[in-house]
């Protein structure tokens, strides 16, 4: 009888329940429950020290949970077989500085257990993918930080892993590099890999992730599809010529409020904006500006994580769509 395979590609890529981690008196992770499906790009957001990197280390078996349980690719946390199918870019990306870029990747291919004949090809493919093909023979010690991060990304993508864990993957990259990473992440998801993207760069997450979880003080404070985490759409109209007495007439668009010269209707479907403008004009209002859309991820993030923190700067106005 064949033994049951420990690594299952049918089960969720990540499935953890009530995962906790204490470092002495500090509770780095206070009961994390989440699930990440195959082919999904999952954004894991949080301020510095929220528990993001701790989570990644627990998922990879680099640290042990204080309590709770979890599976990665259907196998227990840290399972050796599962790690064959996981690509990881650490937050602190450092590779043997005396090795050449290609040698770093062939080393990782060897550690993955790839046959000797395929290692060089796999390394070259990964270098091509991250834009380092022309630097494959250069010593890593002479690479800039950005190039080392690209190399780390290449290492994480070696052998087409079923789960790619990226811890702050663009921290050292310039804007062009960030665009490249977005493309690489989407391409990995399209071939069926799950991508766990740990980041505090909200625009990055917003542009590439299917689902997000926002973590603060070791707890998930919001999670779900990006749209649901961002909350409801609203419309703001800067105008003159109407007063509080006119508001009941606008209730068919959504609950209206008047804050100075700005009328806010939240929630309100974007599609109703022309009708609203028509009605306001008919009511004699003079319209200066109309803004419609959801709060940006940044705004939502600040709302969620600043509840028990002192205010840190003024959130921007809703993003225009």
């Amino acid at each position: 009888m064949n033994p049951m395979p420990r690594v299952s590609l049918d089960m969720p890529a990540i499935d953890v329940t009530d995962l906790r981690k204490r470092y002495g008196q500090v509770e780095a992770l206070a009961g994390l429950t989440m699930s990440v499906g195959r082919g999904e790009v999952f954004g894991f957001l949080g301020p510095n020290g929220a528990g993001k990197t701790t989570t990644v280390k627990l998922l990879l078996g680099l640290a042990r949970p204080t309590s709770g349980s979890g599976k990665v690719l259907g196998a227990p946390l840290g399972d050796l077989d599962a790690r064959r199918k996981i690509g990881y870019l650490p937050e602190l990306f450092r590779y043997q500085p005396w090795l050449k870029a290609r040698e770093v990747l062939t080393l990782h291919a060897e550690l993955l257990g790839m046959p000797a004949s395929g290692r060089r090809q796999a390394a070259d493919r990964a270098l091509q993918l991250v834009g380092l093909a022309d630097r494959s023979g250069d010593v890593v010690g002479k690479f800039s930080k950005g190039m080392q991060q690209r190399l780390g990304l290449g290492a994480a993508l070696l052998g087409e892993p079923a789960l790619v864990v990226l811890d702050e993957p663009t921290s050292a990259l310039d804007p062009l590099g960030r665009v490249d990473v977005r493309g690489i992440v989407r391409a990995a998801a399209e071939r069926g890999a799950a991508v766990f993207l740990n980041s505090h760069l909200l625009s990055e997450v917003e542009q590439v992730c299917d689902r997000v979880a926002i973590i603060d003080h070791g707890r998930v404070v919001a999670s779900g599809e990006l749209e649901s985490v961002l909350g409801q759409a609203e419309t703001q109209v800067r105008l003159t010529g109407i007063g509080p007495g006119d508001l009941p007439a606008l209730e068919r668009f959504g609950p209206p409020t008047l804050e100075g010269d700005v009328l806010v209707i939240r929630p309100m479907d974007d599609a109703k904006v022309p009708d609203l403008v028509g009605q306001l004009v008919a009511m004699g209002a003079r319209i200066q500006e109309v803004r419609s859309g959801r709060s940006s991820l940044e705004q939502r993030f600040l709302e969620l994580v600043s509840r028990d923190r002192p205010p840190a700067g003024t959130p921007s106005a809703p993003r225009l769509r």
Partner: protein
Amino acid sequence: MLTIARLTIGEAARRRVLWVLVILAAIAVSLTAWGVSSLISAARENGVTEIEVKFAVSQVLIFIAFMFGFVLAMTAAFFGSPAIATDLESGIAQAMLARPLRRSSYLLGRWLGLAVVIVGYAILAGALAIAVVGTISGYLPPDPILPIAYLAGQALVLLSLTVLLSTRLPPIAGGAIAVVAYGLAWMGGVLGKIGLVIGATTLVSLSDASRFLLPTDALWQGVVYGLEPSFVIDAGAGQFVAEGSPFFAASGPSPAIVAWSVIWVVLVLALAIAQLRRREL
């Protein structure tokens, strides 16, 4: 494990450590050759007998072995102490240990790679020194392989200790502790010999304890014994002046202490693996 061992040897080669060792060995052997040939020609001019020349050469060889043993031990300490610690501090280890690589394989691979470099260095430099001195003076130790093996053994003991320390301590602390421990073990051995001569049993017991805790000095006795001509052993055995000297050994280390040295290395590596497994990365 072999992947990591190969990587470690490659690191020594790529970082020019191997070349530095080879050049140092070449310089040391050239100076030894020059020194021994000057010593012999001066002795012969002064009409010193051949047996006295043989004695002098064997003493020079033991002294060179002592210096070389020290250099080798330091090399082991400074190779071993950053082996794990630097990889962990820099993050190089985390990237590798997230792969399907057991922590035990990683640690043993690091140890094995460094052991190959150090033992290779011991064999190369030791054999070259003995061969050059033998060619110039005509004196060859009774069994030239034995002292080299004991020298290498001493270095492996110290390497294992520093690899263990490296799983918990920063490189400088680990290296410093290993150097001090090596010095103390040697002093323990010397004091034990004196204790034996003057009948101070406490000193002997302390020396035995130090050999149990760190068996480098017991192996050093093997180096001395292996380099002595048989007539020196016959003349010195039981003699008060000779028995108390750190550069004389009437016998080699007992099979029990040699076996303990091997067990010691295995135990220390097992402890190092346990430490690394427990460590949160």
